[in-house]
């Protein structure tokens, strides 16, 4: 084996070792990952939930896209879905957004629409709830 082959062989062994450690120890610290997407069991009693932000500018109500808040869908879900009252984190996000916008572009009211989906064949229908987002600092908890 040449010196170069030894060095590269050490790289291969280290790389494989790293991959094994990632998987076995379930490391999730980017760029290390054990790729756990969708790994959690969701029994039939668990109901899927989605949140969407509706905001008013002028007379029009708009559904805000995550990118408008500077986030992607997963990051927005992380902000809202874990909270029993998603209106609170939504208010924080929108106040930050409003602070960066010119007055005529600011949102004057907003709410989170939380939809809890019924599983098929249960005979139940989706549950839709609304949580107001406090846009003025004095409205916050």
């Amino acid at each position, binding site marked *: 084996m040449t010196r170069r082959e030894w060095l590269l062989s050490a790289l291969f062994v280290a790389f494989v070792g790293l991959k094994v450690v990632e998987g076995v120890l379930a490391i999730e610290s980017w*760029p290390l*990952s054990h790729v756990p997407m969708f790994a959690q069991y969701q029994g*039939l009693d668990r109901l899927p939930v989605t949140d969407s932000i509706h905001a008013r500018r002028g007379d029009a109500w708009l559904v805000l896209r995550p990118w408008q808040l500077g*986030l992607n869908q997963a990051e927005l879900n992380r902000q809202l879905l874990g909270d029993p009252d998603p209106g609170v984190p939504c208010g924080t996000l929108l106040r930050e957004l409003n602070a960066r916008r010119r007055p005529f572009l600011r949102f004057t009211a907003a709410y989170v629409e939380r939809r809890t989906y019924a599983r098929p064949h249960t005979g139940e229908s989706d549950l839709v709830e609304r949580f107001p987002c406090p846009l003025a600092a004095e409205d916050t908890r």
Partner: protein
Amino acid sequence: MSARAAPGGLGARAVAAWRRRWFPEASLADLAIARVLLAATVLYLNGSLRFFNVARAPAHTWEPIPLAAVLGMTQPDAATVALLLEATRWSLIAAALGLCTNAALLCAFVLQLVLEGLLNCFGKVTHSTIPLLHAMLFFALAPSGRAWSVDALLRRWWRARAGGASALTPPARSRFARWPFELLFLELAFYYFDAGLSKLTASGLAWADGATLQFSLVKHGGVVAAAIAPHLWLCALLSAAALVFELGFPLAIVVRRLRPYFLAAGVAFHLGNHVLLDLIFWPVLAVYPLVVPWSSLVAWWRGPGRRFALRRTPA
């Protein structure tokens, strides 16, 4: 695995097997093709608005990953992100052209590592670009610029000036042209295997009973998802197939003949995820052409493949 192992002994045989696996003579053209494909893929990836939000994201959502914390990185402003992107772009263009190839690829890898790291500082881990990042490192350490590159042209010109006509022919093969493909395939195999293992350790075999997939299908909606979700048996079948694919992928590391089948299954797997769950994992799919030995494929097509195709063509 020692060069001084007794000839014919177990050590010598192990070394020989290791060298046959990792360092066989292979086409430098394959490396060149992979280099251009890789650079083009990352250029396309960075051309999107992926990094647009890094500077715009609300400050309170900034949660630096350990790597960013160690490097003392803070949320950058838009100008810094634009500068990083521009530097990455030019490094990738140089790598694609084969100009100072290894340095350009290494530079692009470091810059991309920083950019992707920034993207991961908002509480969610981005999994889809990890294999592509590793590919950049592997090809940066390989003789990727020895063929079809400005480097190769310059080298030939320099040798022609210094030596005779024999120096004009560049080497078409190298013992170091195969390992990046092997290591990248290993990366893919572990990527899928880890995903399968995560499911088993978090949920056990119950993960494949259909309830978990049904949950995701109901949540993500879509016409096809809505059609499949009510049929729990179909959800169970698809879940089991996904688990078999993910956990079985490492088989193709050892049994090379299985590789085309697992790669084809991978394409079906990702397209299925896209249609059913609106999950776009195209940067992982973009790694597939990088593990294909194109010269072997061409040789196969000129030989048995062509004969097979001609036999099947009706007169």
